[in-house]
């Protein structure tokens, strides 16, 4: 009995020891772009998009699991592996795309900051520069352990969405039925939304971030079981939150009158006002938290990946003179990202939507690299992908490519 308890204690300890990378990644997944995409989906299509969450969760788990497995087995980041196995040119191309894509994502995060605080009549010309400065200092001057703790705590704030979802009193029966009843429409708005939903949930940059974080944390094959559990728990949580966001918007907006959300990323929060001050506060507070959370991780992760892949020194524990490329890239992503939001006449929502769709379009590209890498036996040994994993990940590639092509086709035909 005592042995059993001891063993149990050991496993719990390991679980908390590795708690961090997978969970944080999954949570940061619901960034401002994600929240907006889900809100917009719920506001326009009601409970209809709920069915996508189940397959998205499976795909998310499979993809994230592949990353953390690669990190644990090889001890190398995704950018490292792409460089070693595919050479410099390919790496350069991937990194160039990643920087551009992530810049649009950073813009989306700062747009989230601006939008959520403008609900409280705070000007974006004050809030966005402050947020940018705060984020920069937190990462550059803080140390990794305390930053990770801050992030883990920030993950808890996402619960606000569950509460606001309940406060709205949506039609639970309808929600339950639609969660398992797939409906596909060949309507460009609908397909756009679907790509956005997959793209925001399984974003390319997260794969780079997660794998590096697993390596950084020193998780080895031995502790891998705990790490996998963490990934699964995190992914399920992510989509539970997504579920409540969609349900909240379906209940509060769509059931009154279906509507396009395209003025302010925080418009959904405003629509929750009739359901009480709390629902409104929780929803907008959640958005602010998510935006800042992701704005702290995204530029950092991008700078890391690029330096890793191209062989520059990186890391916040290095001095500016030691890792100039890293700091320049990190700082410019924040400065440019925040700067774009402040341009006069900038449309917050258009940019967010664009970033999510770009995520979705580029995802298959990154996924193919990952699938090729993880099936290399000289790299992964016995840890290569099981067949059904390959099936799910190839299916994701095919579906995403199909959706992207369908979108292009529909928009050409008008």
């Amino acid at each position, binding site marked *: 009995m005592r042995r059993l308890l001891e063993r149990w204690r050991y496993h719990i300890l390991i679980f908390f020891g590795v708690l961090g990378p997978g969970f944080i990644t999954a949570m940061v997944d619901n960034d401002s772009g994600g929240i907006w995409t889900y809100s917009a989906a719920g506001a326009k299509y009601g409970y209809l998009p709920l069915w996508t969450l189940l397959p998205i969760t499976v795909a998310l788990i499979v993809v994230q699991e592949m990353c953390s497995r690669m990190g644990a087995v*090889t*001890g*190398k980041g995704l950018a490292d592996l792409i*460089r*070693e196995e595919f*050479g*410099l*040119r390919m790496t*350069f191309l991937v990194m160039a795309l990643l920087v551009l894509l992530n810049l649009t994502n950073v813009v989306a995060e700062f747009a989230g900051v601006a939008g959520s605080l403008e609900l409280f009549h705070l000007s974006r010309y004050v809030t966005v520069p402050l947020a940018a400065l705060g984020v920069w200092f937190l990462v550059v001057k803080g140390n990794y352990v305390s930053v990770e703790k801050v992030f883990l705590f920030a993950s808890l704030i996402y619960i606000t969405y569950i509460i606001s979802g309940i406060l709205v009193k949506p039609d639970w029966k309808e929600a339950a039925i639609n969660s398992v009843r797939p409906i596909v429409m060949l309507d460009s708005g609908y397909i756009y939304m679907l790509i956005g939903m997959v793209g925001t949930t399984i974003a390319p940059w997260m794969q780079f971030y997660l794998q590096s974080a697993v390596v950084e944390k*020193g998780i*080895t094959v*031995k502790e891998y079981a705990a790490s996998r559990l963490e990934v699964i728990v995190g992914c399920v949580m992510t989509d539970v939150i997504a579920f409540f966001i969609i349900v909240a918007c379906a209940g509060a907006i769509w059931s009154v009158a279906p509507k396009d959300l395209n003025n302010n990323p925080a418009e959904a929060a405003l629509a929750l006002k009739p359901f009480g001050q709390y629902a409104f506060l929780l929803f907008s507070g959640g958005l602010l938290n998510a935006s800042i959370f992701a704005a702290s991780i995204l530029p950092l992760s991008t700078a890391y990946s690029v330096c890793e892949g*191209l*062989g*520059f*020194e990186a890391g916040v524990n290095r001095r500016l003179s030691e890792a100039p490329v890293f700091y320049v890239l990190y700082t410019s992503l924040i400065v440019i990202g925040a700067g774009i939001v402040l341009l006069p006449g900038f449309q917050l929502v258009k940019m967010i939507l664009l970033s999510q769709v770009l995520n979705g379009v580029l995802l298959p590209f990154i996924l193919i690299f990952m699938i090729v890498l993880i099936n290399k036996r000289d790299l992964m040994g016995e840890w290569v992908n099981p067949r059904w994993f390959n099936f799910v990940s190839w299916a994701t590639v095919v579906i995403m490519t199909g959706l992207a092509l369908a979108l292009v086709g529909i928009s050409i035909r008008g």
Partner: protein
Amino acid sequence: MADNLLYFTELLSMPVLDLKGKRIGRAKDAALVPREHAARIDRFLVGGGDIWLTVRYDQIRSITLDRGIQLSDEQLLPYHDDEYMLRIGRDLLDQQIIDVTGRKVVRVTDVTMGLHHDGQRDILTVLEVDIGVRSIFRRLAQGVLPWRWVRRIQRRIPPNSIRWEFANVVEPDPLRRLRLNISYDKLEEMHPADLADIVEDLAPAEREAIFDSIDSEAAADALSEVEDPKMQASILESLEPEKAADIVEEMAPDEAADILSELEEATSEEILDEMDSAPKTEVRELLEFADDTAGGLMNTEYVVLHDHATVSDAMAALKGNEDLLETLNTLFLIDEEERLTAAIPLARLFLAAAESRLKELASETLIQVTVDETQDRVTEFFDKYNLLTLPVVDDEGKLAGVITADDIISILRQK
């Protein structure tokens, strides 16, 4: 001078011409045979039809950027077995190596070779491993722009290279390491803290390769400098128990105990079994104490004398403990019952006559803690009394070990 340089990216896909000047294929890779020569390009791999051919360096007449590689001997063997070859394109390009002088891990972007004529043929030798922006530009532009342009433009970018002698390839497979004549002797001479930094930057397999092949003393020093206790444990775990035991024996007992306590019990037992009996007992005793108590922090490396000893006795004792001298700063006195009676700052010995009693040189107050004192309290003592060494005693007042300031610094840094 600049004309005698050839970059590996320029060599790649150079045409290879036979005696009559007919093209038989293009250069696909070049390889060193380290057992024969450390830097000379010994083999060129040529791809034409379905198979690759191997060209030995002495089958070549000339290598020029304009005309390519001209052979002097057409008897080429098909390329198959390459166990003894270090292939530049496959094994070096885009991989990580250790920059021994710069003391860091870098990624290879290109390789600079020197081209010289020895009277009969052109010979290529590896001069430098290129990293940084200039070589990235070269890699990206090669084949897109003519080589002359690439060379001209890149002059504006500052170079960043490592001399080949100071580049250390990391090879996880021990057999291949032997065949390729890769050794880590150069790493053994590094400062342990630098070596630890390098090791922390590598992937686990490469990390193990290094600890497996450097000598136990260097390995022990570097292992103590690795900051993350989890990483220390996983390195030790990955080694053969004998090798792990050799390394642990070389470590200070308190550090050895700290690392072993991170391991699973079966593994740490296995390592302890392989150790010599004297260090084993010490480490075992230390393992008994909880990590965050004085007992867990202390080590058993100290010099102790009887309380009627004289300065010359102390000198004699020090001569017998030369391996401790580097860190020693306090001597301890004990009475007949082995109870701690006094602590003597080492520096006071210099000013005292040889026959004077050590007791007279002792610090006014004896500051000591018991083995079960908490870590926080110990840290507080160090701060309050400005200590370098703090003696730890058991329940009966017998000296059990000492805590030194470097242990405290590590604790504070981890917070």
